[in-house]
């Protein structure tokens, strides 16, 4: 062999890691070069530190906002990591050989938004998927992870890389980036050779895709090196989690089943890939049992047999994850994957979280946190003593700099994001404003725990905003009621994060389908309405909220009539919802007014609904000028005609009286009818009616009550003076007794 050994790998592939170790053992190189940013060689000793636990990630991020990051996640079975660890254990020199992270970040930035032609690398993957009828990951596992000889593996993987390179038509920019990186790697190899390492004793670990490039391309010249763009950046090692590894898709960035691949890695070291199926299935069965289900060993055996038959149909030696899973679903899960979902998540993803020795991490979230603290002039609040901060969210018109003009709004968003992340630095205080919401009050206090919580947030994202977005998304997905989803939405709104808000909205929409309770729907609609109306203040575009608001309103309209068929206990809640909806409709032109008025008319007309609701509907119509004098007169005489039971008549009146009282007081005919109705009631009925009436009048002001009294006086032919005289006079014996009799009266409400 004349040149350096080029060992093509797939990132996060156990077989590649395993074969790589064997190849290293056999080649015994003098220098190991690994695809990874060459300025991060100093991170290597932390990778080999005895306290470090994987998964971990090397993170490089720009020092200036907007923060851009590149992340190299490493699991125990990452070939790159194995190469580094092997070199460390054998005292062989090891270096990273890819572009420095600054150059990589700068290239990444330049490459953003560049259009990619259709036939890019992903397109080739899709084509392969169509041909094989399997997902790319499955195809890879079936074709490569089961090869048992390292030379065969190397040949297969290098061929795959070569063919992929030949078939894919990546965009100009992406191709150029690949070439620049390869030229740089080639230069690093050249430098090593110049330094006296025999070429055949150099061992390069790189993506299989790069192998042909490293073989054929020219090394980078000095001028080219000088011309590389650079971005200011920092790099650190951070703990990673299997969960996060599995939630990121795409080549190199993630791995859908990290725990499963760790099993494969273990199996390769123990008895070969043939052990994996039984290992996986027994674990799956154990996890399924732990979740409270019954699984017999016979079923596990059948699942294994089925998986074997499936892999034979596909022509692979051992079952792959897809076969095992399908086998388990048919034999253990009664044909439904959902039955096994919890156990599968446990077995395939797992909960492993990495660990980095203390003091090593300086993550981009921490960096971002402190930078924002500075920018938003909040540093002085970073003390152990609690301080209060009052914010005025309105734009300051006397300040020219647009950033400064909205300083308080930006502070508010930042603090809300911290709150969402559970970083206990700032706690909101209740608002002291009434009828306005541009003021916010916060209590700020720094604790050592808060620092830890900031580091923990780095597991969720690269910046405070990114982490908050992830946290909101997770919370959104866990929602089970529209109230919860509305709260998430409100948080996203307060954090000023439209994408997260849209996601929460989507969750809300899907939950709203099943939420039948009218009051919940109305409450949620009101919350959304606030956002639509005050979105401006928070610089939030309410457009996506409107359709949902319309939907909720429609849902409420469709269920309202049924909801009105309720007992006296539930009726107040229904009328409250009706009131909310009525106001919503008045506030928003986008809500179907015609439908609403028609509905109010029906509720008001129908005799079989709770009369409180009917009365309220009448009141709403009256208030909106949709009911004329004649209709009101007709309704009053119909609802309050003698013979109508007290709870119905008085209940209706209570509903009617809960709105536009001035107009009611001015209508003498109403009081005459009420008077006639009450006089016609017998003793027991009257007592019942009293409960409703008392409640109806309890909301009236003293002035209104005296106006009513005057009305009644006019009806009864008693003037003000006469009444005063009668009331000021001593109580007669019979009157006192009558009052005493009332003491035991149950007013039902207090």
């Amino acid at each position: 062999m004349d040149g350096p050994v080029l060992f093509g790998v797939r990132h996060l592939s156990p077989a590649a890691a395993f074969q790589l170790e064997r190849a290293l053992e056999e080649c015994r190189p003098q220098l190991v070069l690994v695809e990874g940013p060459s300025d991060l060689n100093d991170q290597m000793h932390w990778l080999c530190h005895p306290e470090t636990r994987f998964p971990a990630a090397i993170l490089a991020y720009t020092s200036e906002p907007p923060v851009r990051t590149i992340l190299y996640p490493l699991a125990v079975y990452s070939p790159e990591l194995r190469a580094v660890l092997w070199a460390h254990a054998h005292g062989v020199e090891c270096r990273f050989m890819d572009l420095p992270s600054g150059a990589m970040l700068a290239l990444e930035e330049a490459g953003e938004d560049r259009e990619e032609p259709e036939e890019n690398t992903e397109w080739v993957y899709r084509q392969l998927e169509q041909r094989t009828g399997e997902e790319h990951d499955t195809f890879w596992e079936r074709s490569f992870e089961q090869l048992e000889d390292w030379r065969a593996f190397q040949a297969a993987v290098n061929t795959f890389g070569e063919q992929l390179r030949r078939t894919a038509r990546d965009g100009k920019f992406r191709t150029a980036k690949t070439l620049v990186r390869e030229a740089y790697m080639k230069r690093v190899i050249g430098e090593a050779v110049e330094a006296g390492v025999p070429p055949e004793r150099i061992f390069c670990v790189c993506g299989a895709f790069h192998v042909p490039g490293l073989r054929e391309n020219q090394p980078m010249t000095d001028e080219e090196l000088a011309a590389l763009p650079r971005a200011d950046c920092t790099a650190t090692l951070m703990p990673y989690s299997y969960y996060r590894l599995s939630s990121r898709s795409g080549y190199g960035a993630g791995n859908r089943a990290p725990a499963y691949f760790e099993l494969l890695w273990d199996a390769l070291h123990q008895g070969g890939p043939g052990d994996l199926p039984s290992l996986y299935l027994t674990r799956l069965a154990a996890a399924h049992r732990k979740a409270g289900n019954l699984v017999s060993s016979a079923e596990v055996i059948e699942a294994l047999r089925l998986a074997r038959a499936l892999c034979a149909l596909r022509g692979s030696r051992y079952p792959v994850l897809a076969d095992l899973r399908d086998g388990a679903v048919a034999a253990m899960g009664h044909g439904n994957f959902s039955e096994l979902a919890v156990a599968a998540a446990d077995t395939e993803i797992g909960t492993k979280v990495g660990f980095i020795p203390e003091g090593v991490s300086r993550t981009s979230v921490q960096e971002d946190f402190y930078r924002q603290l500075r920018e938003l002039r909040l540093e002085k609040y970073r003390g152990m003593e609690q301080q209060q901060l009052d914010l005025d969210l309105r734009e300051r018109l006397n300040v020219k700099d647009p950033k400064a003009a909205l300083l308080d709004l930006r502070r508010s968003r930042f603090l809300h994001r911290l709150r969402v992340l559970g970083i206990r630095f700032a706690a909101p205080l209740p608002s002291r404003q009434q009828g306005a919401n541009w003021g916010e009050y916060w209590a700020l206090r720094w604790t050592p725990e808060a620092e830890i919580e900031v580091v923990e947030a780095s597991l969720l994202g690269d910046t405070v905003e990114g982490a908050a977005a992830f946290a909101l998304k997770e919370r959104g997905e866990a929602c089970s009621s529209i109230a919860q989803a509305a709260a998430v939405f409100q948080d996203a709104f307060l954090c000023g994060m439209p994408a997260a808000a849209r996601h929460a909205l989507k969750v809300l929409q899907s939950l709203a389908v099943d939420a039948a309770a009218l009051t919940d729907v109305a409450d949620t609609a009101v919350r959304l309405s606030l956002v639509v109306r005050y979105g401006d203040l928070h610089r939030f575009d309410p457009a996506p909220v409107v359709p949902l608001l319309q939907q909720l309103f429609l849902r409420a309209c469709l269920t309202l009539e049924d909801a009105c068929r309720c007992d006296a206990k539930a009726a107040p809640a229904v009328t409250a919802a009706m009131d909310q909806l009525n106001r919503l409709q008045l506030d928003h032109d986008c809500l179907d007014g015609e439908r609403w008025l028609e509905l109010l008319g029906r509720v008001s007309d129908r005799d079989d609904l709770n009369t409180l609701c009917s009365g309220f509907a009448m009141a709403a119509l009256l208030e909106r000028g949709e009911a004329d004098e004649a209709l009101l007169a007709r309704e009053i005489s119909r609802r309050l005609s003698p013979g109508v039971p007290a709870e119905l008549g008085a209940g209706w009146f209570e509903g009617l009286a809960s709105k536009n009282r001035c107009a009611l007081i001015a209508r003498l005919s109403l009081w005459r009818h009420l008077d006639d109705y009450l006089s016609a009631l017998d003793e027991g009925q009257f007592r019942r009616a009293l409960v409703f009436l008392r409640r109806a009048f309890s909301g009236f002001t003293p002035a209104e009550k005296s106006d009513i009294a005057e009305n009644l006086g006019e009806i009864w032919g008693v003037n003000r003076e006469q009444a005063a005289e009668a009331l000021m006079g001593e109580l007669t014996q019979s009157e006192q007794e009558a009052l005493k009799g009332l003491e035991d009266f149950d007013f039902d409400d207090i």
Partner: protein
Amino acid sequence: MAEQNVQRLPAEELYRRELEALMAAEQDPIPTGWRMSPRSVLTYIMGGEKVKGVEITPKYMGSRRLVEIAIATLVTDRALLLIGEPGTAKSWLSEHLAAAVNGDSTKVIQGTAGTTEEQIRYSWNYAMLIARGPSPEAMVKSPVYRAMETGSIARLEEISRCASEVQDALISILSEKRLSVPELGLEVPAVKGFSVIATANTRDKGVNDMSAALKRRFNIVVLPTPTDLATELEIVRTRVEQLSAGMDLNARQPGEDTVEKVVTIFRELRAGATLDGKQKLKTTTGVLSTAEAISLLANSMALAGSFGSGTVTAEDLAAALQGAVVKDEEKDRLAWKEYLENVMKKRGSGWLPLYRACRELEP
């Protein structure tokens, strides 16, 4: 054979040429008792390139993987249970599997409330039994019995319609793989290749729920409703064409556009979400299966042909749609109304006539 007079031929007769071509071209190992390799069975079901000049038509339009699981189950001589909504081609798939594996799809027991244990095991020709006493000649073997003797596949339709004691009779057969005839002192062992394909309907859940013991003896494959719009459109279009040709409906084929609308509405209400997945919807109590969409279209064609202009109009469709979606429950009416307002109304001018026609029917 006078094939023309038979209303419906079994699969192995209907597709004899394809089966023979596949067998002649066989290259892979064949399991004991099978007529062709599992891979050829897969090709027969899913369709494929010409084999020996014979085109292999697709019999099942749907997930290839599920068919693979079904075939692999039969390879491991486990019993196979196909579960699905009505109209998801369970029996169809079971028939073709048996036809391909054994060249005989006729060993069938139709599960009903009246199915007895004898029909699963064996019964007697009573005249002969009384005349000559118990003898092998007097025995009437069930399809399962015959399948065990010959090492082939027995089919059991709608297993969850059978009473539970009948279902239990299967347990011993499936676990012991032998059947005893105490009257004759016989023990009939199942010959290699014996298996059972059963089907069950998800809508029958709760009628005669299968016991855990019985379920454990099956590998279960759940057949989904067609996975995407294109597949379902294809199925509906082909079937409507076949139906209208056979039944003189005197109406023009409903346009591409109409079929798409019906299938879209069915799919969305069935899945409880719009096709783009952006909006969740209330589901209805009705099944809204592909088969129903087919008959809905055929009915509107019959309506248009007999009483209308011969072209299916929005009004014909609206009435049929409402009938299919709104069964007799309040919940359905609500779901349908919401669907009209939230989805159909906002779909643009193409949907407007249908929306108006549907809206008009609303009280």
